């Protein structure tokens, strides 16, 4: 079960990356991680650095993917972003991509929320 969730997550992250590229973002890094946590996607929208948290769910029976993004999780992304910047200041923001997949991994819904904090 755990591995299945991970697979879903990876699949979702790939879908999100493709979506962002289509929107004209440049993907800088995927799964930037250290012992404190992970940022799913780091991209550049024109000159703004964007840290993206991707949440994927199969079906909406157990709640919306949006519900799984807690303030605590966003704080972790924020702290990770600070670490990524290593003290340098740059215009940046945090986005959330919520994806709902069907039984055969087809995309039922993809919502991109910009600047969520």
């Amino acid at each position, binding site marked *: 079960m755990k591995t299945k969730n991970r697979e879903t997550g990876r699949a979702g992250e790939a879908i999100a990356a493709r979506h962002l590229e289509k929107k004209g973002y440049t993907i800088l890094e995927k799964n930037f991680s250290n012992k404190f946590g992970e940022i799913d996607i780091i991209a550049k929208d024109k000159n703004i650095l964007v840290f993206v948290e991707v949440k994927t769910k199969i079906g909406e029976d157990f709640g*919306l993917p*949006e*519900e799984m*993004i807690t303030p605590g999780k966003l704080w972790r992304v924020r702290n990770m972003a600070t670490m990524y910047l290593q003290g340098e200041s740059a215009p940046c923001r945090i986005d*959330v991509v919520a994806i709902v997949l069907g039984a055969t991994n087809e995309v039922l819904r993809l919502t991109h*929320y910009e600047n*969520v904090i």
Partner: protein
Amino acid sequence: MLVKINSVANVGLETVAVDVEVDVAEKGFPGFTIVGLASKAVEEARERVKTAITNSGFDFPPKKITVNLAPADLPKDGAAYDLPIAVGVLVASGQIELPKGNNYFYGELSLDGTLRPTRGILLLALFATKKKGTTIFVPAPSAAEASVVSDVTVIPVPMLADLVRHVAGEKSISPLPHTRYEIADDEGSIDFDLKEIAGQEQAKRALVIAAAGGHNVLMWGPPGTGKTMLARALPGILPPLTDSEALEVTRIFSISGLLPSGVALIKKRSFRAPHHGVSAAGVIGGGTNPLPGEVSLAHLGVLFLDEMPEFPRGVLESLRQPMEDGEVEIVRVAGHVRYPASFTLVAAINPCPCGYLGHPRRECKCTDKQIAKYRHRISGPILDRIDLTVNVAPVEVEKLSLTTQHTEISLTSKEAKKAVNAARALQAKRFEGTRLYTNSQMRNREVKALGMLTPEAENFLKLAAEKYDFSARSYMRLIKVARTIADLAAEKMILPVHMAEALQYKQLA
């Protein structure tokens, strides 16, 4: 979409209008935030509202929802904002339409959408009368509180879904009928009859005077002579609450959340007997958002302190302000509130720690030091505020006998109540148009204007005052007691005989 729902906040006994602004935004990351100095209970409304809406068969929109409780600088506490927030979310998400007119929503939600009993409904109803044609939507279990208030339409809401059907015009909830206040003076409410207490005629007389004029009483005597029983008999001879008095008392109970469900008005005078382990905050009132204490719950009733010297000194001293002013002012970080606290103090004390000092047959085992220490626990300023002091002496065995016929006939509670009611009627006439109810509440101004003291009676008082060095307060208090005794005798003027009786109850030592 942004909607504004009317609700209220109760700060002490003051009611302040609160605008519950609910915004359901189309854009933005879904979430539910409440701002406006909300306490933990208000913050938790998020989960209650969310679940109640879903369980009532409506959609909780997965959108960015922001709730603002204005004015933003007033601390909000309690669960009463559940209903206005839920209605706001339903209206702002386009699921229902707000009824026209001036509407107020107030009440706590349970997870299944049922409205739970909520404190302070009466205060909301009284507030709503300020504007004509106001409708209030309140939880059905506590709606009865509001039924005594005229000029306001009260809609008792059992469930959130019922409210939605009501505003949609599918199935309307009928407004609560207005109930009129009726004075119910039933004898069945007497727990202890005065005639059940053997002897103690002087103490009984003192209680009648106390009941008639609202004076404070101190009873002292050895253990087991009937001090506690006498105090318990006092509520039985007190007159029922009048219309405006009942409303005042009910307001206090409403804000404390002590009104039983379905009770519209409190008609019986309260008898509060806190244990001597009580804290000062428990007596005076307190808490982050200060709630009324025992003195306010005993408003227009009786506060009984059994074994008075056992109470912490701080607690006793804190009684000084309410005993003098008839109200308490509580100051906390959240603000300061004022509660009425005009009560009759009944105190019972033993003459010494072992209780037998001055007993005709038993020996006292206390040392002088112990007695001095015991007496020292009650300060002069407190004793100075007590109008009637009576010695409750041990009862002779002959009077206790169950088989011998007693020749003397004891005063019954029924007779006492009749005398008290007559005296109160005279006082009601005297204080018509003022905010006073009893002689004991008179201030110096009223004593001068309405005391009706004969020169002979005053001369008598002057002589006693000089001899025993009465304080200015005692002087005025004696006139008030004499006024009540004159009222009991149905005399227009205070005669020397009334003053003489008043002096009997003054502790001279």
